[in-house]
């Protein structure tokens, strides 16, 4: 019989709300920068790599932020 130890979540559930707030704020800053860049940059000065990396960073932070928001409100996915 294998030895078993009590399982705890990889992150303390008490920190989910703080994490959700910080991650979503950072994510919104990146998303905002992305949108401003999209609207203000002229066609000649476009840089696809820069735009994609901005979008990637924003989606990672917003994605994890949303997950922790779900966990905070009690939707344990």
């Amino acid at each position, binding site marked *: 019989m294998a030895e078993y130890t009590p399982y705890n*979540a990889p992150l303390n559930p008490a920190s989910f709300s703080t994490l959700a707030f910080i991650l979503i704020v950072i994510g919104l800053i990146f998303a905002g920068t992305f949108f401003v860049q999209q609207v203000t940059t002229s066609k000649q000065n476009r840089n696809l790599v820069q735009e994609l990396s901005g979008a990637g960073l924003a989606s990672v932070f917003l994605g*994890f932020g949303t997950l922790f928001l779900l966990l905070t409100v009690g939707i344990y996915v």
Partner: protein
Amino acid sequence: MRAFALLLLAAVLVASTTVAAASASEPSLRIKTAARQIDLSTHLTRITLDLTVENTGSAAASSLLVALEGDRDPSLVSAIAAPSPKTQLAVAREPAADARLFRITLESPLAAGKSIEVTVRFVVAGAQTAHPREITQQEVQRARFVGRLHVPSPYQVAEQTTTVTLPSNNVVQYTRTKPVSASGSTIKYGPYHDVAPFSVAPLSVHFEAATPFLTTRSVKRLIEVSHWGNIAVEDVIHLQNTGAQHKGEFSRYDYQRGQPAGHIVRSFASHLPLSARDIYYRDVIGNISTSHVREGDSEVLVEVTPRFPLLGGWQTVYTLGYNLPTAPFLYTGSSGFKLTIPFLDQIHDTLVVEDAEVRVVLPEGAANIQVHTPFEVEQSRDVHFTYLDTTGRPVVVLKKQNLVREHLEQFTVTYTFSTTSMLQEPLLVVGFFFALFSTILVLNRIDYSISAPKTKKD
């Protein structure tokens, strides 16, 4: 004449050996003393048999038979023997048509001439019937129990006594087969000597049953395991007062004014695990505010008051749910995860559940699922879809009928689960946001102008 006597002797010898051969498969047992206790203090009839069984045959006996009176299947039959009271003996129903017989397999065979002390416990629901069948709100409920005067047994019983415990001192009528003595809330029958197997003499007790016949028609339990640190438990409970039917109309004034009759369910206490939090109690209408949570030393008590008092025949369906942390219930080891959780909670004190269904929702990607239950259950598998699921979560469905408090033990589900697949859900959200931003990127690169580009004139 002498030759004839020898012939007769030979014939008798042959006859006795054939009888011995016939009973070799079923060793001849005899019950030296039998003490039976019939506890009628709640609507669950608890019968305890203390037997001293003697093997009067020549072969060793590896098992013995006990019988149960009445036409109700017991919710629980358990047996222990004297030298090792902690070891539960194996009990199996005998496929006999005329009686409820149970075969108890002894730990070690009982040698010829030896005796053993065996204690058998039966818990039977529905053995007591309300009599009269219908009563008004103010009347006192009375119930009748009909059984056998002598301990039902396939063996000869040398000496036996029966003690009947009632919920109160008020007895309407009881079988008076001497010797019998009644004092307070107990009636003692016996000792009766040398009773033949399967005596059919009746025993009937008609008594005041001022406790509610609260029966749980069904419980549907949903256990959702999340590796983010939560186990969500939700019970949908269907309760009914199965005592004497309510007659006439219900008067709220009479109900509120004095002490309501004992058969009416006003409120009851549900026992939840100690670490239960975020407890909710609601039904189809919405939240039910008449509940109180008290934390005990080893459990959380929820005092549940239904929306209306439950009179005879009245029923209610409600939902009681709570969250548990993973720590004392979910374990991790080299061979995977192990979930150990109670099959059901003690919804009320005289618990009897006619139909229980427990659905354990494991995280998406769980495999090699194995279930270990302390009693036999009907098992099946299902798939459950909820937030951020792609292929669905594996569900273990366990069904059990006729459950009592003694069944409220923990069961275990073991499974393997890769911790990295926990990242599947956040990555799904990340992918959604990235698709959104990419769409903006593409849309921004499309030229919407109606006129042709004027680049050449610049």
